[in-house]
Structures are given as structure tokens and as C-alpha cells.
């Protein structure tokens, strides 16, 4: 397994090099440069030349490309034109946790909900319930996403007033706050990570244990300890708590909207994959063995139906780029997607290149994660990876 991961990491580094080069040349190819957008034309020509030299923009495009790519690997992404003299890496570091947070939750909810619903739909085929859920699934799957997001804001924020209209926190509330938004956010991420670790630990113990009641015990213990850890974590941070609540309040609507948009695809895929699986001979064998219905559904059918769903996740990763830009723009979420859009519009080339580079890193990491997951789920793949 370690060999497999190491091999993948080397492949990823090469892939990333290609990706970054492509991004670099694409952004260079757009019309306009720093002189047309950011430099005051009244500055004397010698001064302009000096500035370009200091920013490393005086060489040929090939030398600039090589300098950029090699610097990227050392963590030097240059200086943002629009937020001069802030370093690009700092701007991105501020934004990236917010994007990760939003999309991790939306992805977990969307795939979890989609899988559970799809599995049940296939199992109880026919009837009004199945038809109506399938039709609403298709509707959500095909709907024009930005329009749907605006509709959600109109309904839940404007009319009902349940959630804030946009943003990541309430500025008036934070005026004079003893913490910065990112400090609180960091603590939120930390607490969620701790909880997730307990849940995953419980699931691992459950999968290793032999007896059914013992498995259930480990799973439940994982959930309970995770919840307790979360409560305890925030019980100890009384001062920070209201600010954390403010951030979570802002997170709810974007997560719900993203989930609603994304779960339908998973649901429909799980449903059809499950229907295929149910025709397999080993399902008939399981029935003949006297396996209870619920176990046939969950252990025999759904476990196999899961494989194409995981594959679809890889293909769906592109959504993080496209969906990220749209979601963050519509909800005024200051993440890396909206950063990319701003940087591109105002032609802040270093910032846009850096943002795209990091989106690429996120996508590659998710890819690696899914590859590992897949090899755990499908023994036929596991053997081929030379285990």
C-alpha cells in the first residue's frame, strides 16, 4: 500500500507540473498585462522597467515560466498585483480552509444522502414514493445551478430570514472582536477534525471486529465520543463560541444548496447501479442462503453498487472548480473560488495562477484519497496494485 501511495505521489507531482505549466501559459495568453492594469502610465519609463525587473517580469516568457514553476514548488508564488505587497501564498492560505470546509461538508452530505436514498429507491422499486423522489432528483440534477442558488437565498434569507444573505461572518458583530475570523475558523476546523477522527476510529474498529453487536457498539461509541469531544471543545472556549456560531450560521445555506444540487446525481447513479447489482447471481445465492433482506440490501448489493459511485466522485471533482466559483460568488463566500474569479477579472495574474494551482492541488489530493478508498473497497483492484 505504501509503495502504491509513493508511486501515486510521484505521478501526481509530474501531473501537477504539467497542469501548472498549462495554467501559466493560459493566463499569459490573455490580453493585457501589469503595465496596462496596475501601473500608473505617468510613471517614467525607467521606473517602470525597474519595477518589472524587480517583479521578475522582464525576461522572456520561457524564463518566466521556468522561474514560476520552480518557485511554486518552493512555496514562493510571487506578489499579488491587486493586494500589493501581499504575498500570493498568504492570500491563498487565508482562503483555502474556507473552501475546504464548505466543500467537504457539502460533499459528505451529498454523497451520503444520495447513496442512502438511491439504495432504498432501488430496493423498493415502483410506487408513488419512488417515482416522485426520482423525478425531483432529475429536476435538481438538471436545474441551472446559479438560478437555484439565488432562489434558495430569496426564499430562506430574504423572505423567511432564517439565514444571512451572504458572506462568511457578520461584520458588525465582529467589530472589535478579540479574534480574527480565521482564528475562529481554524478552531472550528480543528474541532471537526477531532470529531471526525473519533468517528473514523470507531468505524475502523467496527470493521475489524467479528461480532455484529460488537460492530454496532464500536460504531455508536465512535459517534458518541465524537459528539462529546465536540461539545467539550466548545465548552472550554466560552469567549469564542458566539463567533463560531455566527460562522456556522453563515455556512448552513450554502451547504444545503450545494447538497441539494449534488445529491441527485449520486442518488440516480446509486439507484441504477443497485438495480444492476440486484440482478447478479450472488444476490440470488444470498437469498438462497437465507440472508435477511436488510443484509442483502446493505452488505451484498449496496457494497457492490458503491463502486461506480466512488468512480463518479473522481469524475465529479471538476465540480469543485466550476461549482466553487459559482457557489462562492453567489453566496459571497470568501473562498478560493471567488478569489479566482476576482483575480481573473482584474487581471491579477500571479494571484489567479496561484489560485488555480491550489485548486489543482486540492483536486489531485481528493483523487489520491479516492484511489486509496477504491483499493480498500474493491479487492480486485487491491491485488493489481501489487499488494
Amino acid at each position, binding site marked *: 500500500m505504501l509503495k502504491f501511495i509513493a508511486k501515486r505521489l510521484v505521478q501526481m507531482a509530474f501531473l501537477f507540473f504539467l497542469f501548472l505549466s498549462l495554467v501559466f501559459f493560459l493566463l499569459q495568453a490573455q490580453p493585457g498585462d501589469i503595465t496596462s492594469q496596475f501601473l500608473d502610465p505617468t510613471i517614467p519609463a525607467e521606473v517602470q522597467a525597474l519595477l518589472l525587473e524587480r517583479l521578475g517580469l522582464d525576461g522572456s516568457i520561457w524564463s518566466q515560466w521556468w522561474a514560476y514553476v520552480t518557485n511554486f514548488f518552493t512555496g514562493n508564488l510571487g506578489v499579488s498585483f491587486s493586494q500589493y505587497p501581499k504575498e500570493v501564498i498568504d492570500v491563498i492560505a487565508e482562503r483555502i480552509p474556507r473552501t475546504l470546509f464548505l466543500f467537504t461538508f457539502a460533499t459528505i452530505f451529498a454523497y451520503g444522502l444520495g447513496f442512502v436514498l438511491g439504495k432504498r429507491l432501488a430496493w423498493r422499486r415502483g410506487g408513488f414514493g419512488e417515482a416522485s423522489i426520482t423525478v425531483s432528483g432529475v429536476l435538481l440534477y438538471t436545474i441551472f445551478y446559479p438560478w437555484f442558488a439565488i432562489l434558495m437565498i430569496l426564499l430562506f434569507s430574504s423572505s423567511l430570514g432564517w439565514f444571512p444573505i451572504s458572506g462568511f461572518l457578520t461584520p458588525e458583530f465582529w467589530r472589535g472582536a478579540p479574534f480574527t475570523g480565521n482564528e475562529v475558523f481554524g478552531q472550528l476546523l480543528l474541532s471537526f477534525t477531532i470529531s471526525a477522527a473519533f468517528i473514523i476510529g470507531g468505524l475502523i474498529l467496527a470493521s475489524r471486529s*467479528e461480532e*455484529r453487536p460488537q460492530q454496532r457498539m464500536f460504531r455508536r461509541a465512535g459517534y458518541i465520543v465524537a459528539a462529546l469531544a465536540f461539545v467539550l471543545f466548545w465548552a472550554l472556549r466560552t469567549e469564542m463560541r458566539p463567533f463560531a456560531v455566527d460562522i456556522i450560521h453563515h455556512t448552513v445555506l450554502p451547504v444545503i444548496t450545494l447538497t441539494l444540487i449534488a445529491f441527485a446525481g449520486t442518488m440516480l447513479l446509486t439507484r441504477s447501479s443497485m438495480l444492476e447489482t440486484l440482478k*447478479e*447471481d*450472488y444476490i*440470488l*445465492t*444470498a*437469498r*438462497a*442462503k*437465507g*440472508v*435477511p433482506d436488510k443484509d442483502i440490501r446493505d452488505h*451484498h448489493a449496496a*457494497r*457492490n453498487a458503491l463502486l461506480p459511485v466512488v468512480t463518479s466522485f473522481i469524475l465529479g471533482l471538476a465540480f469543485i472548480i466550476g461549482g466553487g466559483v459559482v457557489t462562492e460568488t453567489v453566496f459571497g463566500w470568501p473562498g478560493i473560488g471567488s478569489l479566482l474569479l476576482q483575480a481573473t477579472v482584474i487581471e491579477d495574474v500571479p494571484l489567479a495562477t496561484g489560485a488555480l494551482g491550489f485548486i489543482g492541488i486540492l483536486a489531485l489530493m481528493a483523487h489520491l484519497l479516492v484511489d486509496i478508498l477504491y483499493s480498500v*473497497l*474493491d*479487492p*480486485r483492484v487491491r*491485488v493489481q496494485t501489487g499488494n
Partner: protein
Amino acid sequence: MTDTRMDTAEGRLGDSNSHAEAPILEVNNLVMNYELKGGGMVSAVEGVNFNLPRGSSMGLVGESGCGKTSIALTLIQLAAGNARVLDGEVLLDGIDLLKLDEEEMRQRRWTDVSMVFQGAMNSWNPVYTVGEQIRETMDIHWDPKPTAAEARAKTEELFNLVGINPEMIDRYPHEFSGGMKQRAVIAMALACDPKLIIADEPTTALDVIVQEQILEELKKIQHELGMSIIYISHDIAVIAEITDLIGVMYAGKLVEQGPTAEVFKRPRHPYTWLILSSTPSITGDRRQLAPLKGEPPNLLDPPPGCRFHPRCPYATEKCMQEEPPLAEVEPGHSIACWHPESVPVTLAGSTE
């Protein structure tokens, strides 16, 4: 549940004496149709009767679509959703399986009747090890549940019995060859000491050499453990090799049944006679094979009278109007035919 297991144990012990006469399986007048969308019924099994004595094996043979697999699936109540059992009894050790509700039947599957399916290649779930899948049957049906060590010991014992290296227990199905998968399927079928095993085309997907090995294995196991087995196959040579009794099916009906050796020596029903005439024999006379002409009837609208009459060389007016009952021609050997004496003693086809 506990009670039935006790009964089972006693039944086994008393096998050689008191219970010896009662057959393990009695199928009485079984009628099963498939309901079609938009009305109409396909008559898949029509009035089938047979008994299987304890510890013996019986083969059901016939062309594709003659109702062999339908009978098997009806016995374990796993026929497709549109199957309707219209009449009949299936008495397994005196209990009518058709009268059990879904949950009772579920508990009896694998402990009372286990199955070796057609195409063992696909009988294994690809994401679990073979050992896990065998253990699953013990977890469900053993009372009390086996510990990990007990389950492993039993699986190793079964693997040795069917001739697989016990180290393969923790391997996944895709690491098994076709023959090994089939052997493992047989091992799984034995995991809960069933009263009856139904083997539906157990060797059809295998090449002839592996087929031969598997059949030998099955025969050996049947004799060693005193199992009662029903074999289902379209391949009459397979049935001839391993069964004590044979039932020949045509278009949903049993047309001839009797001891395998007797039926092969002297087939009485024209259909049996014709299929044997179309099969080459290695030891018998060399002769030109006589192919069986025509096709099995459409079961949506079966022909009146004897269902075989359109293809039968001896059919008369009576055959087209009246259905022949299954009647004994010799003790233990019966056929459903109006002209039991018309079939020649020798097979059809000119000898060279």
C-alpha cells in the same frame, strides 16, 4: 428454531432404521405458472410428482425451458416475482415448504435445502473473501452462532472435503479458478448440514476435465455423508453418471421417471428414447445418431393432450386429445404415454 434443529439431529441418527422408509422429499402435483404482464400464464411446471428417498440422488433432465430450474426455485421459494404456485405440496421431511411464511422459509433455507447454482462463477460476491461468505451462512443458521475459531475449523474441514487447500479461505473469489469456485460453492452448500442439496447445472460452465473431477467429488461426498441431492441438468450424460434416480421432463411435465440404470437400459417414453438416440455412446454399438427434430412447444399455449405429440413418431388421435397420466410400467419405473409398448428396445439410428 431450536426444536427443528433437534428434530434434524434425531432424523439423522434414526436415518438407518426407523425413518428409513419416509422419503426426504415428496413433491405432489406441483403446478406453477408465470404470470405475464397484461394477462396470460406460462405453464412452467404442470402436475409434477416425485419422491426422493433419504440419502439418494435424483436427476431432473430435459431441454432448456422445460421447467427444471423452475421446480428447483419453487422448492426454495425463490422463483421470480411473477411465479404463481397454483397447486401442490412440497414436503421436505414432512413439512410443506409452500405453506411457510417468508420468515420461516428464510430460516429453513440452507439448513433444510441448500443450493449449488448454475454458474458458480457468479455465485460469489466479489468484495468478500470466500471464507467470509461461507461463514455468513453459519452465522445466520447455527444455533448458537459459531465463534471465529469454530467457523474456521468447519470451513477448513469443508475445504479439505471438496479438495481445496484450506489456506485459500481468506482469498477473494477472483483469486479462484473456475473449478475451485465450484468446489468452494459445494463446500458452502454443506456448511449448515442441509437435509437436501439442489445442484442446478453444477458443472455446466466448466470444461470436461474439471467437470469430471467435480462430479466425482460430488459423488464421493454424497456417499460419505449420506446426502440427499437433486441434480438438474440438460446434459443427460452427467445425470447418468451420478444419480440413482432420474426424472425426464418435457414442457413442464415429468414424462418418465425411474432408477437411472433402468431408464438408460430401456427407455420407455418416446421422448427419452429419442434423446438417448441423439447421444453418442462410447461403449455401445457404433451407430448413426438420430437427432430429435422440432422444438419444444410454446408454454403460453401448450398443445392439447400429450404435450409431446407434435414431435412424437408414435402419436395417434388419442395423444392429441387426452393427456396421458404417469403410470408404472415396471415397479418404480413410470412413464406418461398412451403407447408404452411402441418404443423399440434398441435406440434409433442405423448401426454401422
